[in-house]
């Protein structure tokens, strides 16, 4: 499977980007030349130089270091919120697909209702009531983005339900929970995996947007979104403050999308030429 993935140059590039991001985030404490909240008073709003590779911000903090630590925030938000979304989506989707009938109808109407809310504004509304902590943000993003996964899993389980090996499991007298967990879900996870990877990109975007608007990750904790906010006000004098986080977000989202699409081609036998 890995070989097939690597044979697709775009997917391989996506994979490489994602790997690099992981490395950057994991290695931030060692890779970063400075502590992200250390002030270098002599070099406020200083452009890229040997001393500060990506320049400094209005408080004289090293942008490269802040970007590296910001990558940790992005990744964490991406994965934790997708994790929450997947957990909710997979559970509800599997239950709806397995039990069908009334359970299915009720759950799917709920999904429809959730989908009619414009997610971003829903998040804004919720964040307005809660503290704008990173945990709340992940929770809110997760709880507003599970519907796609839910539908995917439901459809998958619904079609698996007709497959003989699931009937066989039921005929052996297994409990529904066991049939779902051991037999249905392992065979329904491929599209969830793909959706998850694509979802990470979406969650990172949402987090950046929230932080950019000042209701996301709160300074002094660095995040690409809030670096960008500062960049906006100093666009005329310090282009690097906008370009660095902007490019980082762009490349990250691109990377996850490429990887996700590549995985879809590899994992989804319906798209695969025989």
């Amino acid at each position, binding site marked *: 499977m890995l070989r097939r993935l690597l044979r697709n140059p775009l997917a391989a590039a996506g994979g490489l980007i994602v790997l690099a991001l992981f490395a950057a985030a994991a290695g931030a404490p060692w890779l970063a030349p400075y502590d992200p909240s250390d002030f270098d008073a002599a070099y406020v709003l200083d452009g890229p130089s040997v001393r500060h590779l990506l320049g400094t911000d209005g408080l004289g903090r090293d942008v490269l270091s802040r970007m590296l630590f910001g990558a940790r925030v992005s990744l964490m938000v991406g994965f934790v919120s997708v994790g929450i979304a997947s957990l909710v989506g997979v559970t509800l989707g599997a239950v709806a697909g397995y039990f069908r009938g009334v359970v299915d109808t009720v759950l799917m109407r709920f999904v429809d209702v959730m989908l009619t809310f414009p997610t971003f504004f829903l998040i804004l509304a919720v964040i307005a009531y809660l503290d704008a902590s990173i945990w709340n943000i992940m929770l809110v993003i997760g709880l507003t983005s599970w519907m796609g996964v839910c539908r995917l899993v439901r459809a998958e389980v619904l079609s698996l339900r007709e497959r*003989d*090996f699931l009937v066989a499991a039921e005929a052996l007298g297994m409990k529904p929970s066991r049939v779902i967990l051991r037999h249905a879900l392992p065979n329904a996870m491929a599209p969830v995996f793909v959706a998850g990877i694509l979802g990470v990109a979406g969650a990172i975007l949402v987090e950046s947007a929230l932080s950019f608007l000042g209701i996301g990750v709160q300074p002094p904790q660095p995040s690409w979104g809030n670096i960008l906010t500062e960049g906006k006000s100093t666009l005329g004098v310090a282009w690097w403050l906008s370009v660095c986080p902007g490019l980082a977000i762009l490349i990250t989202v691109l990377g996850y999308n490429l990887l996700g699409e590549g995985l879809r081609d590899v994992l989804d036998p319906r798209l695969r030429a025989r």
Partner: protein
Amino acid sequence: MSAGSTNAPMASAGSTNAPMASAGGTNAPMASAAASPLLRAVGLTKTFRVAGRLFGGDRSVHAVTDVNLEFGAGRTIGIVGESGCGKSTLGRLLLRLLLPTAGRVEFDGTDLATLSPRDLRAARRHMQIVFQDPYASLNPRMKIGRIVGEGLEVHGVASGKAAREQVLELMARVGLTADAYDRYPHEFSGGQRQRVGIARALALSPRFIVADEPVSALDVSIGAQILNLLLELQDERGLAYAFISHDLRVVEHVSHQVAVMYLGRIVELAPAREIYTGARHPYTQALLSAVPTVDGKDRRQRVVLGGDVPSPLDPPSGCAFHPRCPIAVARCRVEAPQLVSDGGHRTACHLVGDGNPSAGGDVPPPVRHDPAPA
């Protein structure tokens, strides 16, 4: 439930029918059958609702209508019919893997509908199923050993080393080598997978097995191996089979009794020998004559049925077979014939059994296509 963990979970305490009690209390319709049947289907009916055309509202598919069957230990009832006539639906109804729209299934005298979900799960170990498609019937992500042994684990029959040993024994019995234990289904051929499916069904020592076209997807020489295996297992363990197939040759080969289905109904039910030597329903006769046989061209008179199998969405009026029936009379178009018994041979045809073959009068008397070879 209290009795759930004993080795006879069907004998639930509150049950009115004493399970294995002989004749007492049961009102078996077939007086000749001495012991009470292992599994009894009474008036089984299944109607599926399907979305109709735009603005048409829902429509119903009468997949199975009023089926009555009695399965005795060590006996096989073959169920034949063309695609879509309801064979698989019937098979699943018998195991309560589908809920009937009407009618009931009794196992050992207990109506399965009266069992709690938990007791039903416990009861499932006595009744198993083998499928047609050896590719779809095994979980592609489980190793063979797990697939075969999962039932033991679920019912707490055996675990760990003991389970492994039992599984290996079963695998050997159905002709799989021990090295298959740790391999995945995709590494096996269709015939071998079918053996895995049979081993899985046997693991809990069931007493009743629904075999839904177990050899239809296999080559003749491999299919023959599987049929032999099923026959041997029946002799060894006194299994009762519902053997579903569209191939009369195969059905005859394994069955004591044969039920011929057409559009959800049983149109003929008789001992296997009688079906092949004295089929009475014109549909059975046509099926028999359509079966290609290896025994040369000096064959019986051929009845090639015209027309297509009608859609169960809108079955013909009266006798569902009348548009294709070579001997249909006026009455067939309006009145659905009942399954009438004549010495243990049941037929649902107006022109059979009432001793008045030309009932309708506007058609010449029926020509019997005698299936006995010249």
